[in-house]
């Protein structure tokens, strides 16, 4: 102990006095048998060094594997299934109702985002592939109505003919080339072209009916009376049947009632 201050020097002085007395009396030593035991243990340690246990590394790897696999399984079990972008809104709403609060909030947020995206005018949205099936369905309905004739399509279809026309242009590029070397392909192409031609003709016929159906009952009746004045009685009867089918309870003028079957007057 190096005395660095007067206090330390005084402490050192007292220490030396007491130490002299202490050392005069403290002569205790460990017994020889204890010395021998300690030295023998030290020699044994050097001569037979303990084999380092090598179980740490494999045990650590095993533990890491167990923990890792458990975590993966746990995460996989708790992970919600991936949600499709085309999921109907009803499913979203159902999920929002049945899911826990956190998931419900997530679903609601997603529904709000979808509605905002639909409200926002977007150039890309028109070209989205998930919108095309809807347009194709409308085209198919228009073609079917055209093929069935005016009687079978009494319901007013606004601009359905235009849609059909656009469907033509939409579907035409899908036809295989006529000069294809494959015979079956050319036959198929011809058949498809015929169908397209028929649908084009029937679409032109139905245009008049659709135009008529676009009008109010009064206007439609005016058109029928004009046909009657022109002497097209068969056409008048057909139009009247369609009119009665569309408007079962609308009163017909007396001159037209005579052309309608009695049960439909």
């Amino acid at each position, binding site marked *: 102990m190096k005395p660095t201050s007067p206090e330390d020097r005084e402490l050192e002085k007292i220490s030396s006095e007491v130490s002299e007395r202490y050392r005069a009396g403290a002569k*205790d030593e*460990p017994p020889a048998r204890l010395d021998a035991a300690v030295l023998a*243990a030290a020699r044994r340690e050097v001569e037979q060094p303990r084999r380092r246990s090598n179980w740490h590394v494999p045990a650590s790897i095993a533990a890491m594997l167990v923990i890792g696999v458990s975590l993966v399984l746990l995460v996989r079990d708790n992970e919600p299934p991936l949600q499709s972008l085309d999921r109907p809104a009803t499913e979203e709403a159902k999920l929002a109702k049945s899911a826990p609060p956190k998931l419900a909030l997530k679903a609601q947020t997603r529904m709000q985002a979808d509605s905002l995206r639909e409200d926002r005018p977007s150039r890309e949205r028109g070209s989205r592939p998930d919108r095309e099936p809807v347009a194709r369905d409308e085209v198919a309905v228009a073609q079917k109505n055209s093929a069935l004739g005016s009687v079978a399509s009494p319901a007013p279809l606004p601009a359905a003919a235009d849609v059909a026309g656009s469907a033509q242009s939409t579907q035409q590029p899908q036809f295989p080339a006529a000069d294809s070397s494959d015979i079956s392909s050319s036959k198929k192409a011809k058949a498809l072209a015929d169908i397209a031609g028929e649908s084009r003709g029937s679409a032109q016929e139905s245009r008049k009916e659709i135009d008529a159906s676009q009008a109010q009952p009064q206007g439609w009746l005016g058109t029928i009376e004009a046909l009657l004045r022109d002497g097209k009685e068969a056409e008048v009867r057909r139009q009247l049947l369609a009119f009665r089918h569309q408007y079962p309870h609308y009163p017909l003028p007396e001159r037209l009632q005579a052309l309608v079957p009695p049960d439909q007057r």
Partner: protein
Amino acid sequence: MLPARLAHVTVEPVPDEQLMLRYRDGDAAAFEQLYGRHRGGVFRYVLRQVGLRSAAEEVFQEIWVNIVSSRARYRVEARFATFLYHVAHNCVVDYFRRKTPLHLISLDDDGDEVNQVAGPARDQPERAVAIRQSAAKLLNALALLPPEQREVFLLHEEGGLSLEEIATVTGTGRETAKSRLRYALAKLREGIEHEADVA
């Protein structure tokens, strides 16, 4: 009594840390030198604290077994004496945890469990008796010290540790160690003087 071989090696000037490193590397003779240097101090440090010689021997052996066992992990981070008395401190603490209550040395008894303080044979009989009586008084006063002050005094006297090293071993600050040592020395000196006045 220290074997002649151990007494011979204690005069080697090789530092303790170097000896321990050599022992770590497989030199058993280096450990014998190290043991010869510190066996007495460690034994007395333990004996003054636990009181009973049989218990002191048990703790003493435990201390050195710990030192031997830790040889492969030994790194020179402090003086070897600091490391050694740190181990000794922990073993004594463990002893008191296992053995309660504390057994104090009875210096009035001349039985086997008493510190046998022997004076040099060459001294005059009267002188030897006086020294023996004075040392017995000091040891008696030492036994009456609070354990913390007694330990600090023993670390200073037997281990030769500085205040900083004592603070490290006992897990206290330097000022705390210094305060404890000052109180211990004052009480020991007071005890010796009081006994002298009474005599």
